[in-house]
């Protein structure tokens, strides 16, 4: 039983991702058969394009989940920090590199994220309630104090948004799609986060803290510092996503961000990230995001009315979480669950280990 757990754990994670991959392929084939429009060059580029921002957001949700719990404040951190960055360009008439604009947003994101991190790490409050609270505060600041409204981007930012890595035209339909430069940022961020999480002590600490706080502390990790760090960094990543979204849409749209968190969380959970911390992969996160993007982007191609979207997303969250929970429940038995079923299972485990000894 003991030797099985690690193997089984790996296996189940592989299978979650595999399951999502199969689902993606099936969905793609189904849409292709129904509409014949899925495997066209412009649809595929469109999919990649619409994946960029959700995937970066997914990093925030992912980091929250593996270290602490749900984080719902990243859309508003994105909205507020990209607003300040845009205003910075508008007011100062800044002409220089787009990197500086990103740095301004990142600085704001770090500050906002550190507020989350401070409250969550210091007081150990549930991260959902804290981030719900801070996101209403950020929304109040953005729409109340700053009176942010839709605005056109200054030339520096708009030019960056118009640059494209790759442009394709569908010969048949005559529709063109292009992949913006932000795609590179998305790829870069994933590589950095992958490296930090898997090849540095701090990264291992993030998983350790999420897996079992007490053990992590005894192993010498500074639990509070790691949590604070994760939420601060997550704020910076959200800010990057915010600027990416703004330059992609060529306008600053303050109200377009809120609500994004649900879809992103659904994607991350679908990708096999465990709800109570410690387990989850970036591969799964990308696959989950791809699946959700296909669902939201392509329902129209198959002729399903847009107003079914919420229903599908809700159903996917529930099914995805249920699968993830049932899997982790079978693996971890009583470790986290507080209920009678968990107890019964743990007794079984204890009995079995006792027999082996």
């Amino acid at each position, binding site marked *: 039983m003991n030797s099985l757990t690690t193997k089984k754990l790996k296996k189940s994670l592989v299978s979650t991702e595999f399951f999502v991959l199969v689902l993606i392929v099936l969905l793609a084939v189904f849409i292709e058969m129904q509409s014949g429009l899925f495997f066209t060059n412009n649809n595929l580029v469109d999919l990649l394009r619409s994946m960029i921002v959700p995937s970066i957001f997914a990093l925030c949700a992912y980091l929250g989940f593996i270290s602490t719990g749900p984080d719902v404040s990243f859309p508003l951190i994105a909205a507020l920090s990209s607003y300040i960055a845009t205003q910075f360009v508008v007011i100062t008439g800044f002409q220089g590199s787009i990197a500086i604009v990103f740095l301004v947003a990142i600085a704001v994101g770090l500050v906002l994220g550190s507020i989350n991190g401070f409250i969550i790490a210091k007081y150990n409050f549930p991260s959902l309630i804290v981030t719900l609270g801070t996101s*209403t505060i950020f929304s*109040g600041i953005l*729409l109340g104090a700053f009176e942010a409204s839709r605005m056109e981007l200054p030339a520096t930012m708009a030019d960056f948004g118009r640059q494209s890595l790759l442009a394709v035209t569908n010969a048949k339909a005559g529709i063109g799609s292009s992949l913006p430069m932000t795609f590179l940022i998305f790829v870069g961020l994933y590589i950095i986060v992958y490296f930090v999480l898997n090849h540095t002590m701090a990264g291992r600490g993030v998983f350790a803290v999420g897996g079992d706080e007490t053990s992590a502390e005894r192993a010498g990790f500074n639990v509070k510092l790691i949590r604070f760090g994760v939420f601060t960094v997550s704020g910076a990543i959200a800010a990057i996503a915010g600027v990416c979204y703004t330059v992609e849409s060529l306008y600053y749209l303050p109200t377009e961000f809120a609500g994004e968190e649900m879809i992103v969380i659904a994607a991350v959970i679908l990708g096999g990230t465990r709800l109570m911390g410690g387990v989850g992969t970036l591969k799964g996160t990308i696959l989950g995001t791809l699946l959700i993007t296909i669902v939201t982007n392509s329902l129209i191609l198959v002729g399903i009315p847009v107003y*079914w979207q*919420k229903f599908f*997303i809700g159903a996917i969250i529930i099914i995805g979480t249920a699968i993830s929970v049932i899997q982790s429940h079978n693996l971890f038995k009583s470790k986290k669950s*507080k209920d009678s079923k968990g107890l019964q299972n743990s007794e079984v485990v204890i009995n079995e280990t006792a027999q082996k000894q």
Partner: protein
Amino acid sequence: MKLLKNNSLSLNQLDGNTARLLTMFVAIFLVASLTKPDMFLSSGNFQSMSKQLVEYGLLSLGVGIAMISGGIDLSVVYIANLSAIVTGMVMKALVLTAVGPELLLFILIAVLAGVLTGFLCGAFNGFLISKLHIPAMLATLGTMQLYMGIAIIISGGSTVSGIPRVFSQLISNSYLFGIPLSFFIYLFVVGFIIFIMSKTKFGMRVFLIGTNARAAAFSGIKINNVLIKTYILSGLLASLAGILSLARLSSAKADFGSSYIMQTILIVVLGGINPNGGYGTIRGIFLATITVQVISSFLNMFPEISNYYRDLIWGVAVIGVLIVNFSANKKTTAKLAKATAN
């Protein structure tokens, strides 16, 4: 208020919270009466306050019970909307041809359909949380989308309106001693929930599960059963809120009142319910509801304050209250530890 106060099943620290709440309520009431006497102290203002607080007051009760059990119910607002839409649509379908006593019967059927919706939604939440072990936050985050989705689908995404006038007149525009009927319904429900949570076995079990689910399981409590009932109760309260809002607005829509989610959590946390479960009182939620309504009405009297600032205030209040309660609890624990050491 004094009557309610006797109804305590609480520990020392909770009385501290109630005292803080009462002080806060009195202070804000005084400030409002002194700065805007003619507007705030008018009977019209009290009538509209007592009408407005009913809906989110009921929603907060549901969220509060879920939080006492160690979970949370984020889907209440959308259960309310779905119930309101179901009630409205059944009413429209049946009532068009009816007159007289038949009409009342049909209205009753429609209301029952709405209540049934709340029951089913709550039961589904409870099923996901207890049987499938999905953490309450995520389960209700998912069902929130799901119920909104269902509401959009059955209403076609548009506002359900044109419900019979009798219904809204009956519930929303009838007064007893100048107090709206809906407020009496609310008071009755508060009394009922206080009774359930403090005087029945079920209430005791909910507290026990919230404090320590494992200990509760060992003492023979059927956790799944209690949790499902908890979320059904929350769903029923939400459907009641939805039906009352249908009567007040004469219409229902899938995405009404999405800002209520934050407000209900604020009220529950302000009311002294521990977000980790196990502690808190219903009278605390009641007091917090009135306090929030007074603040909200007071803010309304300053047209120059943008609505968005209210979000800011609620957000700061939630986190501020959490921190104050945290430090207050820490102090009491420290005191207790000292006392036992001596």
